[in-house]
């Protein structure tokens, strides 16, 4: 059908206008990607534009009075101590999450790539390490919530071993609540880092290893001057992705701690949910969402620049 339309277009043109060959080919391509682009526009750009609109008016469901208020809610961002508290936690979550995730992922990838045991054992271990990635975040949160409960197996083992006098409320402790959530995030996302870095390791050409061996390089020197530079693009990609996931994380906080106790585990995405859907302040919530969007956009730009600089040969 598309071919028939194309032939007709070539012969008759469109409204008497005949288009040259190269442009006709491009139009065909555009037509094929148009549905996907329209879908992306609908689910990505429209919500962004709608959020911007909501953030500059006083919006209330069912009210006809929704005046333009300009930067009122953006000014409120700077006065909201709970928002800055949540932002601080989000940066901490993102940064700690990506450092630990990438570090552990790298260690596991190197372990799985080296010949310290048989291939069958390494394949089995790779399957085992990937398991946490298969859980949905909510299931993981519920499971860990039971493990970390005062009557859960963790407290049970620790008290039986004599390491604890009485059980600890891991998710209710104002110091431990956020680190516990981050630890569950790391547990869940390390397999992703491991798989990506392992793929990068396996793509390092063996010729380089042979050349380094001929030149008398030690294993550490090979790793430091050959493997790491070639892995850097993937490590950077994984780092920025994990940071973004950690920064914008919502599910674990919602299910496990509810942002508590005392806002100690409250992250910016959960705070946004509270403002928009508990306080029903959609305008201020939209302003917060735009702030999150700008922060993540900046990090995405940083990533693109870092990625380009890490590949000087391209």
């Amino acid at each position, binding site marked *: 059908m598309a071919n028939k339309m194309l032939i007709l277009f070539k012969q008759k043109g469109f409204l008497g206008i005949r288009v040259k060959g190269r442009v006709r080919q491009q139009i065909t391509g555009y037509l094929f990607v148009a549905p996907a682009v329209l879908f992306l526009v609908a689910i990505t750009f429209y919500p962004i534009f709608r959020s*911007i609109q909501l953030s500059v008016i006083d919006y209330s*469901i*069912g*009210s*006809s009075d929704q005046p*333009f208020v300009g930067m009122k809610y953006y000014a409120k961002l700077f006065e909201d101590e709970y928002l800055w508290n949540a932002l601080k936690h989000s940066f901490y979550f993102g940064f700690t999450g990506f450092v630990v995730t990438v570090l552990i992922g790298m260690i596991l990838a190197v372990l799985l790539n080296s010949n310290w045991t048989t291939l069958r054992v390494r394949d089995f271990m790779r399957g085992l390490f990937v398991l946490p990635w298969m859980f949905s975040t909510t299931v993981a949160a519920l499971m860990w919530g039971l493990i970390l409960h005062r009557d859960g197996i963790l407290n049970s083992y620790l008290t039986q071993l004599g390491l604890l006098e009485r059980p600890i409320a891991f998710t209710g*402790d104002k110091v431990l609540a956020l680190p516990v959530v981050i630890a569950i995030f790391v547990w869940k996302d390390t397999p992703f880092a491991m798989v990506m870095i392992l793929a990068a390791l396996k793509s390092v050409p063996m010729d380089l290893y042979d050349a380094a061996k001929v030149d008398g390089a030690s294993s550490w020197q090979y790793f430091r001057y050959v493997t790491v530079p070639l892995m850097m693009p993937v490590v950077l990609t994984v780092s920025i992705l994990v940071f973004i996931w950690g920064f914008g994380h919502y599910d674990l906080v919602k299910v496990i701690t509810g942002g508590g*106790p005392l806002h100690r585990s409250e992250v910016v995405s959960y705070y946004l949910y509270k403002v928009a*859907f508990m306080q029903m*302040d959609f305008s201020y919530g939209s302003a917060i969402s735009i702030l999150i969007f700008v922060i993540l956009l900046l990090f995405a730009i940083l990533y693109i620049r870092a990625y380009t600089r890490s590949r000087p040969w391209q």
Partner: protein
Amino acid sequence: MNRRHIIGWLSLLIILSMIITGCAKETATPQPESTSLPEATSPPEATSPPEAKPTTPTEEEVVEITYFEHFSTEFGDEWFNKIIANFEAQHPNIKVNRISKPWGELWPSLTAWAQSEEMPDVFATHGAWLAILSEWNALYDLREVIEENADDEYIENTGAMGPYYYGTYKGEVNGATWGYFVYGLFYNVEFFEENNIELPGTWDEFEELLRDLRDEKDMYGISLVWSLPEGYSHFPYLQWGWWVTGAGGKVYDENNEPAFNTPEGKSGLEYWKRLYDDDLISPNAEAMTVQQARGDFCSGKVPFIIDGPWIKGTCESLGGEFTVAMMPPICGEETCGSPVTFQYLSVGANSEHPEAAFEFIKYMQSDEVTIDWGKTFGMSTANMAYYELPETKEDPVLGMIPEIAADKDNMMIPAITNKDAIDTMILEEWQSILLEDKSIDDAIADMESQWLELMTEF
């Protein structure tokens, strides 16, 4: 076009959007006209309404109404299909289309429909939702249809539990009572009989009993839910508010504004803090979930729980091997009031057939349906007829409800806009007291100011 140009165009687009789209105004939403009818808040002694006028559609026109509910996702479709079929047989010109979603999707669905002005004709609401939905002009004011359709039999059968017939908000009548939820202390009958322990009648006796259980049996008497996000609906009204009511105080006044900055309010916080500090309740209440607290009770680990009548069914489903009963109302120094709330059936503001919708509501509130509902699922209803049945009177949980319902000192869980945010704030302040980040006096003062701020912000 290089990357810099793309970012530049995108930034310009965003700025232009802020300027242009911010000037766009929403189209006006037509406001429903209010009629000058008396407030429908008094019990049966009120004057009889005028004779009912025929308002249902004629036989020639069949109207369709939508009924949105969540219970069938838990109890199954069979009962609902049966009652709808019976209703349609009695009203051949009204067809009911049922929409079913789980409880967790009820509020998000209602919010989305309110925004798009496509509310169902009939749906379940709770006290706090009445306030919010009313502010959003999403509810139909039932005064007119009640005046035209209500008769003595209807008044006698509905809303005789406590002081409310209908949910009202700012003078509008926007919810007809259907379910009646009484919260109380439920206990393990066999535990108390085997240990020959007398049930407490006051909060002081309750505290004393908890101490005795710790000292003599090395066990905790109760598990309380003070964690986020679940505990926000428990502490303000089912624990602190309940104690304050017993002491003769209030958590909120008739304008839904805070009324707890009083000696009673402070003493209430001191009471629950004492239970926590003296290790009389299950440890780590600030991390306890509802599921875990119910598990503690239903497994026999603790002999008490503060919950609603559904705890009996919950324990049965969890394999509990003891009889669950509801204690007589526990008393403070002044009153023995309990926390109560209604579930309502409301009509959407945009309903094209409000009379037909109200016919369905009347049917749902009838003896026929409420007795069947109660007998089939053990749920507590707002219709007194159910509690007159011999088997209901003998039920260790449901048999207590008429006595509790008759108490005029009961604390109705409030219909406040922003209730979830206010309750969460109260729990957060409570946690700051527990974890000794704040004194009780400072926390009460902060609660009061934040409550007013959250109400104003809505």
